[in-house]
């Protein structure tokens, strides 16, 4: 490669890196602003909008319950089908609950719940806020001295984080139960035995790190989608682009964060 093309390649990599840094910077700034407004809302007036927060919890989270339960059920069943032959090879089929629970509680439950919720809540938030930007609603809020972060972002952040964790709990239980269903119906494992093996095998660490991560996933989902939504430009097309971008970017960041935090917990706990 010639000197000039190396320079051009470096420039392109540099520009990409710069874009990523600017993006993460923008996200971080929004997150800080949100924390500031949340704390203000806890300790002083204007208070956090509790009604709106509950409304968002229902809208973003409760409506995702059936789909997440169904998805997790299939995930648990798939795990059981996949792992049963391996365990049988080692004569350890009665330990099926251990491997299923150990896979779901710290990893698959929180992760898949968050990914499904990204498509559900993240896309909805980005599209909604984006439409509000395009319709000058956000400008109207701002210019009537109603801060969009306090008014729009804070309730969604609280709702989304709480619901992501709650849905991870649901996902953990339903997923493990899905494995149990296969164990009982196909593999002839006593459900009572399955249940006890699962409970005994799980450590506090498995449950706590899983739920801690899912709080972080919730934060990623809501911050990315609020950021994308509030930065929409270019009419209806811009809203569509922001919605897609928020889903893709949030999923990427969730999986990256999952890897990073799993590694971190591996070393410190």
């Amino acid at each position: 490669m010639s000197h000039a093309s190396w320079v051009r390649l470096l420039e392109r990599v540099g520009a990409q890196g710069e874009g990523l840094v600017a993006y993460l910077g923008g996200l971080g700034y929004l997150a800080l602003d949100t924390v500031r407004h949340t704390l203000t809302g806890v300790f002083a007036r204007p208070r956090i909008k509790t009604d709106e927060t509950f409304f968002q919890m229902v809208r973003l989270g409760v409506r995702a319950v059936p789909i997440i339960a169904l998805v997790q059920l299939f995930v648990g069943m798939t795990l059981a089908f996949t792992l049963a032959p391996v365990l049988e090879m080692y004569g350890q089929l009665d330990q099926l609950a251990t491997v299923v629970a150990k896979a779901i509680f710290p990893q698959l439950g929180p992760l898949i719940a968050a990914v499904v919720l990204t498509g559900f809540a993240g896309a909805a938030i980005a599209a909604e806020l984006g439409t509000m930007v395009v319709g000058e609603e956000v400008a109207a809020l701002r210019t009537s001295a109603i801060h969009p972060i306090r008014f729009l972002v804070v309730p969604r952040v609280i709702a989304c984080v709480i619901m992501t964790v709650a849905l991870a709990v649901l996902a953990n239980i339903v997923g493990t139960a899905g494995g149990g269903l296969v164990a009982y119906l196909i593999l002839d494992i006593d459900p009572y035995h399955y249940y006890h093996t699962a409970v005994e095998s799980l450590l506090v660490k498995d449950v706590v790190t899983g739920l801690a991560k899912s709080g972080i996933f919730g934060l990623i989902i809501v911050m990315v989608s609020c950021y994308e939504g509030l930065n929409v430009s270019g009419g209806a097309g811009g809203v569509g682009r922001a919605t897609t971008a928020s889903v893709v970017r949030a999923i990427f960041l969730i999986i990256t964060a999952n890897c990073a935090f799993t590694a971190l917990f591996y070393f410190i706990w």
Partner: protein
Amino acid sequence: MSDSVEPILELRGIQKFFDGRQVLKDINLVVAPGETVVILGPSGCGKSTLLRTIIGEETPDSGHVYLWGEDACCASPARLDRLRQRFGILFQSGALYSSMTVGENVALPLREHTDLDDDIIRMVIKMKLELVGLRDFENLMPNQISGGMRKRVGLARAIARDPEILFYDEPTSGLDPIATSVIDQLIIDLGAKLGVTSIVVTHDMKSALHIGDRIAMLYGGEFIAVGRPDEFRHPRDERVRQFVEGLADGPIPLRVSKTDYLDDLLGAEVEPGG
């Protein structure tokens, strides 16, 4: 207007660029309390941009906006919020909050910024909606009413807290003649009876002559004429005359592109602006 009155709004040397293209060149204007100033100009000349600059939604690339003598461009967010609580804005699209009913839209500024009881707020909603002739529409959603009605609800929301200055972005475009008269009369009444200062952006000549204490014509990024309405009835400036009389031929071209039409059609290489 005597010079002893402290201006409520003052624009000094405002310039605004978009992607290197200059939209506002040198805007100067002094508005006295209680005055209704109409900003007139063809579509795309930068009227909305100017309005957004005044309300702090855009920062000017140079120049200053003084509201009540305070430089709004340099104000802290808290100060700016305090200033913003004293004005009302009607956006060009109405900008209603699409997830709230008409009534909730009007109520929001009151709910957010005052401690008024729900009963009183409900009364205020009815009063403000009655002023724009939409009292019966309180419980409808914005997407259930027409564009012109949305604009009138936007106006009801803008006056919900009895602001000292009202900014209107094309309050009557897209309205039928009767609704137009109602809104025009409302703007006049707000000024005459309540002493509200109004800045009205419009390209409706008839409204402008009717409601304005003063008219400022924006063209090419500058005010090319500022004066009382009667001075606009028989203007001397050719550009103003063309606009006032609505003539197709004159110094103001319909087309704003600078490249040659034929060259553009035939795909010839032309320098932009050449």
